[in-house]
């Protein structure tokens, strides 16, 4: 589903619920009221946006550090012919939440969230051993300015 298949109501809904899902007993009635449709229609539109892959998730987003967890970004450089194998080893750890191949060197970038820095080190060394990669750069944030995918849909 491309942006062109979203009508005006869908776009309004997306722009509202990215920033704030109503913290109300009947949130879809509230949402529908704001865009001029019934609560049932608001819910079925959001479901459709999820099924179409426009919306990845609806719900709470937690601050990993305030939950007492540690998080980091890791980078490794892997030859193209081994990258799928290495990526599958990386993905096998539930603590890994994102894993992308990007252009340039290093070419494999993944994020890890675990209960402590030590737990992250354990995940990284397990990946290094099982994937047979020499070096993984562990790059924890020294400062976070922003984590918010809130893109105005026009």
């Amino acid at each position: 589903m491309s942006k062109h298949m979203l009508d005006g109501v869908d776009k309004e809904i997306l722009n509202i619920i990215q920033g704030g899902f109503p913290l109300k007993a009947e949130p879809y009635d509230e949402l529908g009221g704001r865009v001029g449709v019934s609560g049932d229609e608001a819910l079925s539109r959001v479901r459709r946006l999820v099924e179409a892959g426009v919306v990845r998730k609806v719900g709470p987003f937690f601050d990993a550090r305030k939950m007492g967890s540690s998080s980091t970004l890791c980078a490794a450089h892997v030859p193209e012919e081994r990258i799928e194998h290495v990526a599958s080893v990386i993905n096998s750890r539930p603590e890994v939440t994102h894993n992308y191949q990007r252009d340039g060197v290093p070419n494999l970038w993944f994020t890890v969230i675990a209960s402590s820095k030590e737990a992250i080190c354990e995940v990284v060394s397990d990946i290094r051993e099982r994937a047979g990669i020499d070096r993984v750069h562990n790059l924890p944030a020294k400062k976070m300015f922003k984590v918010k995918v809130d893109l105005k849909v026009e």
Partner: protein
Amino acid sequence: MISDPRDIALVRVLQVEGLFLTARPFHGAALRLGWSVDEVLERSALLLDRGVIRRFGAALTPGNAGFRNNAMVVWDVDDKDAERAGAALAGHPRVSHCYIRPRFEGFPFNLYTMVHGNSDEDLEAVMAELAESAGACRWKALHTLREFKKSSPSYFMNYWPELAGSSKA
């Protein structure tokens, strides 16, 4: 940090797959917890105020919402200027993530951003605007070639809410 068993129980239940795609998600949570809907709403609002929950809402798949051209853009900014430059980059509406991270051998960049555009030209234009406000001596766009994994983390999933749901704290 959260440590109250009732908060932990609430966090577990709010993560239930598909809960927020039902007409009354907070009722659903209240039923699972054996709490009143009001308590679920009040505690959720408190976790939001404390920033434990950054937000309730929807995460878009940027590519499917019309933002098909995305890059991780990294910046080499003087360490003394990194706080200012980071705040300036984070202030741009097309930047979704912005962090200071350590430099490493062969990779002299210390600011990391995720930048979103709706075409190649649009992404280039946004990056040019950002370069101006960052005042970086060099920067690099790392385009995504393949997505191997994208998921949300789960918290406290080895914790049993039944233990916290029996009495009001």
